[in-house]
């Protein structure tokens, strides 16, 4: 068993899916001879043919719209958007058509389409290279949204996305592209709609996804040294969401913190908090807290380390979970004008 990176696992998932099903095609900007700016499609055009993996004009709305047309006519396109924020021109196609075609045709026209989007920061990127845009897709009914945080999940969730009859947005945490694990491929991990307990614990449930998962695990190590056991849940699939595993964990621990990079206001964490307090209110010993990016456009590289959630911030939130049954002082101060 070799150590492979997340990018290599994604590459192998694409190759295996294409070998299994000749209707699977891969396209986007620079995915052909270059192999993608993150090398996720490295060698695929050369090995499987430039009719199976090919470059397109620089036009994201066209890429997704063209892919939708192909998906309507017997193909299973897997398109790559080069960076998170460059998906925005494709926004109309995703929201107006990809998410609705099955619904408006009452099931006559399905859209077996995958859109792969490298997302998130921590790579020193300039503007438009570090956004966490998952909330927009999650809030669009008709799109599935999956976010691998581990190498095996990258392989398995992408394979499942390609096989899914519905459109799936696969958001790949680019900071973790070079993370490594010993994995024998192919591998099948838990399916869509299943969160995974990455580290069991009895004291606090920490919900995280993508690059926030290693952050949560790092905090859990330190917390354990201090006598608190965090149960870290990797949410993995935002849509469909695993209410059951989350509720079971919070039912056990009675305390919950949600961690994500994206801006906190109206972020996906807000939805998770709402669901936890609706379903687990009587199990809770403290309010559910969030550790997120600030409500600002993603900052430049020289400031991003102050914006991104880190283990210290997660631990600070843990400390505010009313262990002494006192109200959280943060919310007692007046908001300044």
């Amino acid at each position: 068993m070799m150590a492979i990176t997340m990018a290599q696992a994604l590459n192998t998932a694409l190759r295996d899916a294409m070998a299994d099903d000749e209707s699977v095609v891969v396209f986007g900007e620079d995915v052909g001879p270059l192999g993608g700016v993150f090398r996720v499609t490295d060698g695929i055009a050369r090995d499987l043919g430039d009719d199976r993996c090919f470059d397109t004009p620089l036009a994201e709305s066209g890429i997704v719209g063209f892919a939708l047309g192909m998906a309507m006519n017997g193909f299973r396109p897997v398109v790559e958007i080069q960076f998170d924020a460059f998906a925005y021109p494709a926004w109309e196609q995703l929201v107006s058509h990809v998410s609705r075609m099955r619904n408006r045709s009452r099931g006559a026209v399905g859209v077996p389409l995958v859109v792969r989007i490298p997302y998130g920061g921590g790579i020193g990127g300039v503007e438009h290279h570090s956004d966490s845009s998952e909330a927009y897709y999650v809030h669009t009914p008709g799109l599935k949204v999956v976010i691998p945080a581990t190498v095996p999940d990258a392989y398995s969730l992408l394979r499942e996305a390609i096989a899914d009859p519905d459109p799936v947005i696969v958001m790949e945490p680019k900071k973790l592209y070079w993370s490594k694990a010993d994995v024998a491929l192919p591998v099948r991990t838990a399916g869509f709609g299943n969160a995974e307990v990455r580290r069991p614990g009895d004291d606090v449930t920490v919900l995280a996804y993508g690059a926030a998962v290693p952050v949560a695990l790092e905090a859990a190590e330190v917390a354990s040294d201090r006598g608190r056991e965090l149960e870290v849940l990797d949410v993995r699939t935002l849509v469909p969401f695993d209410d059951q595993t989350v509720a079971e964990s919070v039912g056990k621990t009675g305390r919950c913190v949600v961690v994500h990079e994206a801006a906190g206001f109206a972020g996906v964490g807000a939805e998770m908090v709402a669901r936890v307090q609706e379903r687990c209110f009587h199990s809770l010993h403290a309010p559910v807290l969030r550790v997120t990016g600030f409500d600002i456009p993603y900052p430049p590289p020289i400031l991003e380390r102050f914006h991104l959630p880190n283990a210290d911030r997660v631990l600070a939130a843990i400390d505010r979970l009313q262990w002494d049954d006192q109200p959280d002082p943060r919310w007692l101060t007046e908001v300044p004008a």
Partner: protein
Amino acid sequence: MTTSAELPAAEVVGSAAARLLPADTPIRFLDHDGRLVPDAGHGRYAMPRTELLTEAYRRMVLGRRFDAQATALTKQGRLAVYPSSRGQEACQIGGVLALRDTDWMFPTYRESMALVARGIDPVQALTLLRGDWHCGYDPHLTHTAPQCTPLGTHLPHAAGLAYAARRRGEDTVALAFVGDGGTSEGDFHEGLNFAAVFRAPVVFLVQNNRYAISVPLVKQTAAPSLAHKGIGYGVPSEQVDGNDTVAVLAVLCAAVERARNGHGPFLVEAHTYRIEPHTNADDASRYRDAAEVAAWQRRDPVARLESFLLATGALTDEDVGAAREHAEAYASQLRDRLLHDPEVDTGQLFEHVFAEPTPQLREQRRWLEEELRGES
């Protein structure tokens, strides 16, 4: 072909431009009174077969009667809204008859006439405008995409679907309708570019009916014509008198055949006019005057074709009468079928969001069921 180290040669670019640009004037066969003009078709396009023209006539009579009925049904509240294509019959029926049944059509919300001319059940075609589900027909069975609301966004779909067909060795062609306003949208640009780069067999039919709701063409573009936009993508183009059915069919059939034979996309700009307002909710007197409408009514596509076919003996007065009777019966049947409101089934809310509902959707369906039973 130049290598990347060489600059494009003048003769190569020049000859490509000549090949791609439209003729200086719109292609025409019939004058306003339905008489064949000298130099009909500019010598570039063949007269369509008589059977095709008589079929076009019958479907145009039907289409016009259907359109009038739909407008009436909207005034009676049986339809929520109806964007009429009265006056655009040559384009609506021309677009349909240039295609085989196995070819695909990509309509906008103003193509109800084309949908019924294609043989789609009118009640299925009108679900969108009736306040019912958006697409009442099966796109795969009818080879007709759902009517597109956000203008121009269906053009990349047409390119992708047609390219998919060509990849599989099929000779399917896609014809996509778009209006003068729609050519300003970004997806017009992206759809034509993709179609050209991937040599997708798509015919883009721009129905230039002079107005995007109230915005006139002169505010929409500074291009010499909408057809001239094609050269920017390497897409050959032509303008046509959009109220001359013979010309519309001649040009569209040639464009479809060209695409079918692997020569890629084609752009047709059909000059026509929207006789009715944008929809029943629009007040067209605010932006155009009655004299302009009257001038275009004198170029009526149905009357022109009828005159021509009667003069050549392809149609008799009996044929004309029969066509009108058939259309009348069609309209009457439609009226009857739309007397009742569509069925309301709340369970449909949660179906077809995904192939299988998520646990969250199943939960919400239960909540709604409880609410309706008075239990919540």
